[in-house]
């Protein structure tokens, strides 16, 4: 009898694994044509290409270590709130093995970051965000996630943006002088 029980558990556990990542489950369960929802998927090969094209070492390392980045967004105010609640329900129903890392509950914005580590190279992260403009962002990242490098990235991006703005300003000035 014991052996049958073990075999059945094995069977069900393997079926559970097949259930897929958070974005897949979310899209399967809640996405329909009536409500506006955008989905962006970036896989391993694209991440490698992106790593080859960037000069920033932290970003290069981050891209190389990741397996996928999947994003869901919704601009609709009404739908976003609904989707955010549904995403939280989905986490508690099917992704209860994820541990909450960050929980921000401000008056206008909400954000939850959940994390699961299977082993060193197989880690998964889910970010559920509802910003002040009621815009929904769901991010699912898998691979080797280096939090130290990622937390520094925001500063890098702001520097990049600033340097891009400066470059554009210089170009504009040169153009004006030439004219």
């Amino acid at each position, binding site marked *: 009898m014991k052996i049958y029980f073990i075999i059945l558990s*094995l069977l069900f556990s393997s079926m559970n694994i*097949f259930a897929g990542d958070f974005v897949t489950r979310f899209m399967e369960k809640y996405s329909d044509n009536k409500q506006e929802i955008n989905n962006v998927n*970036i896989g391993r090969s694209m991440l490698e290409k*992106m790593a080859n*094209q960037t000069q920033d070492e932290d970003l290069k390392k981050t891209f190389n270590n990741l397996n996928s980045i999947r994003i869901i967004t919704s601009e609709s105010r009404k739908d976003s709130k609904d989707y955010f609640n549904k995403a939280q329900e989905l986490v508690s129903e099917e992704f209860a093995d994820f541990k909450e890392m960050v929980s921000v509950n401000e008056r206008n914005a909400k954000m939850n970051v959940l994390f699961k580590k299977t082993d060193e190279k197989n880690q998964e992260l889910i970010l559920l965000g509802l910003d002040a403009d009621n815009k929904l962002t769901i991010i699912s990242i898998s691979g080797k996630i280096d939090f130290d490098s*990622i*937390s520094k*990235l925001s500063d890098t991006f702001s520097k990049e943006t600033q340097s891009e703005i400066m470059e554009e300003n210089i170009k504009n000035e040169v153009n004006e002088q030439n004219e």
Partner: protein
Amino acid sequence: MEIEQIDKLLGKYWNCETSLEEEQLLQQFFSENVVPDNYKNVAPLFLYTHNEQKEKLSDSFDEKLNQKIEERQKKYITIKLFAPALKIAAMVAFILALSFSGLFWINSTKKQHFAETYNDPLAAYKEATLALDKLSLALQKSEKASLETLVQLNELNVDWDFIDSLNMEIYKNEEEIELKEEQNLKL
């Protein structure tokens, strides 16, 4: 039978040296003759053995026994019929579980379950950096909140050494109680 012979046989009986025939002689003596007074205390033993040996199986005993054996054999046959089916079912379930796990492993290592949205790395880069920026900001927010909590705790001027010493005392007391309990148990 002479009393002397009975005495001799009884002596052998108590020493466990009597043969089956001799024991039967003793049983016969105590069941047929008027037992002398000095043997009255041992007579019931031989009478009991004599009477028990008279007990015989009824004529229907063999029939009943065979019937019971047949019933048991019938039960055994039903189990035997199901056992191979269960084994086959278990094997099928095991193979299915293995195949599912194997497929999952192959898929997780080689393939991804979704289609790439962009062919252009620059477009993908923009989305990826936006996502990572959002995550980075969340992590920074969490770090900042943790630091602020630490600063607030520092501002409370809590005497941590005193709290530590209280903890140590509690720990010591618990250890002493445990030691006493162990000693009591040993005693």
